[in-house]
Structure formats: structure tokens, C-alpha cells
């Protein structure tokens, strides 16, 4: 557990980087420090491993004041990941990862063996081991950076905008990897970013900081979205925070109903009959495994004898009630030409549908709880 107690950092020229900062990072959680440039988030992170020392106040890691420890020893017990990886260009990937274990006295063989394990853990193949950093893509370099930080199995991981320098697709993958690793390893992670979406996605707790080093709000992502402390936090969080807040509510509670369906072999007349019986303008077309193919607009069934499969309207996307959020369900209803979201199971077979009214009902119930 990491605790900041009234930490202040003032530089020689008078700039106040961090102002009376107090908060606590719980064990096994990801705490995200987020804010614009100059808000002191990076400085605060670097005070944890003493790359910067506070002017006043105390930082405790596991109950111990960090300034009482030898900086080098302290750092060997913490993982440190920076933007662009900071990989040593003159060493191979495997030797990069093995750095801290070697520093701690492990033999080359043992350190390398551990490094190979970590290489696999971060999702890289063994063929990468003997390569040099310049031969790796940005995303791969960052993975190696994370592996290197985890090599000595430190309880604490410090990450300074680690995914900011890669493109959005790779960033999404890396964020997902981090969540996967965290589910397995349960490290105490302090993560710095300027991207509120990244903070909301990854953080168990978020510390929103303002220029001048103030801590404005320290809360769970849901509460930051639902109840921003002040105008600054609200504008920092950005637009659509209500919709984004919905991603914290599971779609599990939605009441699904059975839709009116047709198969690929159904004739036009039969389709019209089913639609009339169900009093609906739209029919959901399914294949043999009950996978949804698209929506059939009954009015478009002109005189033809059979259904024009090519004329089916796209689903938009489906949602999985067990895994997805209300946000995904809402989005599905918006995209569906029938205004109805299609729920599928793990195999992709339809389990039911939910229309706007049902989703709205669920939203109201959720926000009532907030």
C-alpha cells in the first residue's frame, strides 16, 4: 500500500509542482493519476521511487518512509515503465528483461530463464528474445518494457504514460493485456496518464489532478463520471459522461423477450403471416445455428414469393448479456434499424432481444442507485 501524506514539491525557481497531496493506493489495485500537462502527476509518481524527493510531506510504501531507504535498493523492488519503453538499445530483448534480476544477484542463466517466462507472460513469442529493440515495433517494445518491470516480481509497478506513444489500436491491446496481467498478478499499480478514457478503463481508483499539483478528486471511475466534484473535473472528463458511465452497469439485468424470427427458407407469405401474428414491422432472420443474419423489413416484402436475403438490413452489432454493459446494449438499439438490440450467447446464438423501452428502464434503475 502506498500512501501520500501532505506531500509538496517546490522547485528552486519557485514552481509548485505538487501541492499538499494526500491519498492512498490500496494493495492490489490500479490507481491512476490523471490530469493535463503540468499538473504534477509524473512528479508525484517519481517521488514514489525517489527519482524526485519531496520538499515536505511523507510517502510511505508498505508502511515505510521512502526517504529512509537507499534509493537504488528501493527501486529494485519496484517496476518502472516509461513512455517509449526506455529499452537499452545495446542489449537483446531477453537481456533487457533480465536486468533487475541480474542486479539483484541472480546468475545469468537463472535471470534469463525468468526472462523467458515473462516474455511469454506479456504475450511475445520466444523468437523475439535474441532481437534488439530497434527491430521491434512500438507496441512490442512496450510489452518488453512491462516484462522488464515485472522481472524481479516487485509488489509495486509504476507506469508513466506507458501507452501514450503508440497508435490507438495498439494502445487498446496493451491496455487489455495490462488488465489480463493484473487479474493474474494483483500488483499495486500506480499509473499516470493524461487520457481520461484510459483512466476510466484501467483504474480501480482515479486521482484527478489540476495544474499546480492539486488533487481535485479521488474516487472510483463510476463516481467520477456520475458525480464530478467541480467544473474542472466535469470539463476534464468530457462530453457524453453519462453514456460512458453506463459502461459500468452490466447488461445482465435486462429483461429479454423472444423476438419474431424467420429462417432463410421461410417464404414471403409465411413471413408476412408471422409478422401479422406478432404485430411487428420487423423480423429477425436466423440461420440454422440460430445466429442472427439481419433484420427483414416487412413493408419491403413486395410481391415476391421468397425472401430477398441480400436485402436484409444490418444488425449493427449484437451484445452479450453476460459480459457486456448497458452502454453496449444501448448502442446496439441505436444502431439497429428495428430499434431493438439482439442479445447473443458465447456461441453467437440469439438468446433474446431488448428494445429501447427495456434498456431505458434498466438505465433508470441503475442511475437511481448512483
Amino acid at each position, binding site marked *: 500500500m502506498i500512501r501520500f501524506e501532505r506531500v509538496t514539491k517546490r522547485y528552486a525557481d519557485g514552481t509548485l509542482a505538487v501541492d499538499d497531496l494526500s491519498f492512498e493506493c490500496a494493495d492490489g489495485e490500479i490507481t491512476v493519476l490523471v490530469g493535463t500537462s503540468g499538473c504534477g502527476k509524473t512528479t508525484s509518481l*517519481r517521488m514514489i*521511487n525517489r*527519482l524526485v524527493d519531496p520538499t515536505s510531506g511523507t510517502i510511505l510504501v508498505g508502511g515505510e518512509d521512502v526517504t529512509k531507504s537507499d*534509493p*537504488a*535498493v*528501493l*527501486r*529494485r*523492488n519496484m517496476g*518502472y515503465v*516509461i*513512455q*517509449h*519503453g*526506455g*529499452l*537499452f*538499445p*545495446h*542489449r*537483446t530483448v531477453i537481456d533487457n528483461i533480465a*536486468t*533487475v534480476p541480474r*542486479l539483484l544477484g541472480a546468475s545469468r542463466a537463472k535471470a534469463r530463464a525468468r526472462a523467458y517466462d515473462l516474455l511469454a507472460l506479456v504475450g511475445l513469442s520466444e523468437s523475439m528474445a535474441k532481437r*534488439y*529493440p*530497434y*527491430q521491434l515495433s512500438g507496441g512490442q517494445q512496450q510489452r518488453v518494457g512491462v516484462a*522488464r*518491470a515485472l522481472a524481479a516480481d516487485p509488489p509495486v509497478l*509504476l507506469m508513466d504514460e506507458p501507452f501514450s506513444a503508440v497508435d490507438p489500436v495498439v494502445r487498446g491491446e496493451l491496455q487489455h493485456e495490462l488488465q489480463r496481467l493484473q487479474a493474474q498478478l494483483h500488483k499495486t499499480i500506480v499509473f499516470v496518464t493524461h487520457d481520461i478514457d484510459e483512466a476510466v478503463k484501467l483504474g480501480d481508483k482515479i486521482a484527478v489532478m489540476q495544474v499546480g499539483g492539486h488533487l481535485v478528486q479521488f474516487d472510483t471511475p463510476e463516481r467520477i463520471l456520475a458525480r464530478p466534484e467541480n467544473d474542472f473535473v466535469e470539463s476534464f472528463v468530457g462530453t457524453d459522461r453519462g453514456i460512458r458511465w453506463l459502461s459500468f452497469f452490466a447488461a445482465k439485468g435486462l429483461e429479454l423477450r423472444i423476438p419474431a424470427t424467420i429462417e432463410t427458407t421461410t417464404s414471403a407469405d409465411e413471413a408476412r403471416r408471422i409478422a401479422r401474428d406478432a404485430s411487428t414491422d420487423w423480423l429477425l432472420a436466423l440461420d440454422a445455428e440460430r445466429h442472427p443474419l439481419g433484420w427483414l423489413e416487412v413493408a419491403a416484402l413486395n410481391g415476391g414469393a421468397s425472401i430477398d436475403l441480400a436485402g436484409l438490413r444490418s444488425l449493427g452489432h449484437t451484445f452479450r448479456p453476460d459480459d457486456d454493459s448497458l452502454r453496449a446494449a444501448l448502442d446496439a438499439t441505436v444502431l439497429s434499424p428495428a430499434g431493438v438490440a439482439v442479445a447473443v450467447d458465447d456461441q453467437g446464438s440469439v438468446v433474446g432481444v431488448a428494445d429501447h423501452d427495456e434498456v431505458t428502464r434498466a438505465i433508470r434503475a441503475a442511475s437511481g442507485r448512483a
Partner: protein
Amino acid sequence: MGSEGQVIAAANTSFGGVISYLTSGSHWHGSTGFLDRIIQHLQYSAETLLIAVAIGLPLGLLSGHTGRGGAVLSMLSNASRALPTLGLLTLFAILIGVGLEAAVIPLVFLAVPSILVNTYVGIRDVDRSLVDAARGMGLRPWQVLLRIEIPVALPLIVLGLRTAALQVVSTATIAAFVGLGGLGRYIIDGQASRNFAELGAGAILVAAFAIATESIFLVCQRFLVSPGVRARTS
């Protein structure tokens, strides 16, 4: 016109003369023979280079690591380039006496800046984020210097050494004028006695020596510098 024709005539016959001078067996042995002088040249060059390295390398590393002294280095480098080798050698020869000791100071003075400046720039150019990552991982300052900064700065450091080595070889050649032995003697003596064959032979030997020196350093560079770093700087 006539004398020019004479010179050209002499030149035409001289190249053949140079070659025969070089290949004549007797010229290779004895105290004024090629072998002896090559070894002398090698000795003086190697020893002064070592002194220059002993002075320049630590200072360059220190300067680069702390970031101070850039201006001084720049001035030193300009001074070294502007002050003629011959002038310094003759001055010291007169003031201290012709021979070894007099030559050492100019030799070292002219070689040090290459090592100093290139080492300084090499270390300065190391990406700060590498140093940050290294410190953040728990390497102590001297470990950062030794294990990270130097290996990454190595291409430039070796370049500095190579340039200095060539400088020393070149200066040692000229130093023959003030009493230092070595291959320069053939040039000086050849000029004095109008023996163009000897002059040319000496020139070829010195040139070969220089090319050999350069090649050795190029090979060293290939082996010393990590492929990961070589790729970035090429």
C-alpha cells in the same frame, strides 16, 4: 620552364625509383631499416595515444555525464585545429631540447581533443529517457555510466579514439623533423638529401601505416559496438 621539366623528369623516373627503394632488401634491416623504424613509430604512437586516452577519456566521460564543460571543450578543439603541429613541435624542441620529451607534449595535446570532444558528445547524445529508465530500475550512477551510457555512446567514443590515433601517427611523422625517430625520418632525410626515392618510400610506408591503424580501429568498432546500437547510428 626548364627546371619544371627537370622536376617532372625526375618524377617520372622516381616512381620506379621509389618502388625499388621499397623492395630493396637491405633497406629493411639495420638501425635505419624499415622494420626498426616501423616499430619505433608504432611505439611512439601507441604510447602517446595511451597517455592521450588516459587524459581525454575520463575527462570526456565526466564532462558528458555531468553535462558541464561543453564550451571549454569546444575552445580546446578549435585551438587544437588552428595551431600548426610543426610550430608546436619546433617550439618545444627548442625550449626543452630536441628528442622524445619535447615531442610528447604536442603529440598528446593534439590528440586529446578528438577523444575528449567525441566522448563528451557521445555521452551527451545518449537518450535521457534511457538514463531515467536505468535509474528507475535501481542502477547506481556509476552503473548507469558503465552499463548504459558508455555502451550506447561507444560508436562516437571509438570514433574519437580512431581520429586521435590517426592524429598521433600523423604528428609522429612530422616529429621526425625534431629528432623523433620513426617513419618520418625517411621523408625528412629524403628531402634533405634530394633522394626522391627515399622520400617516396617513406611516404608510402607512412600511408600504409596510417591505413593499417584506421583499419584496426574500424575492425575494433565492429566488434565492440553492440549490433543494437550500430543499427541506430548507421
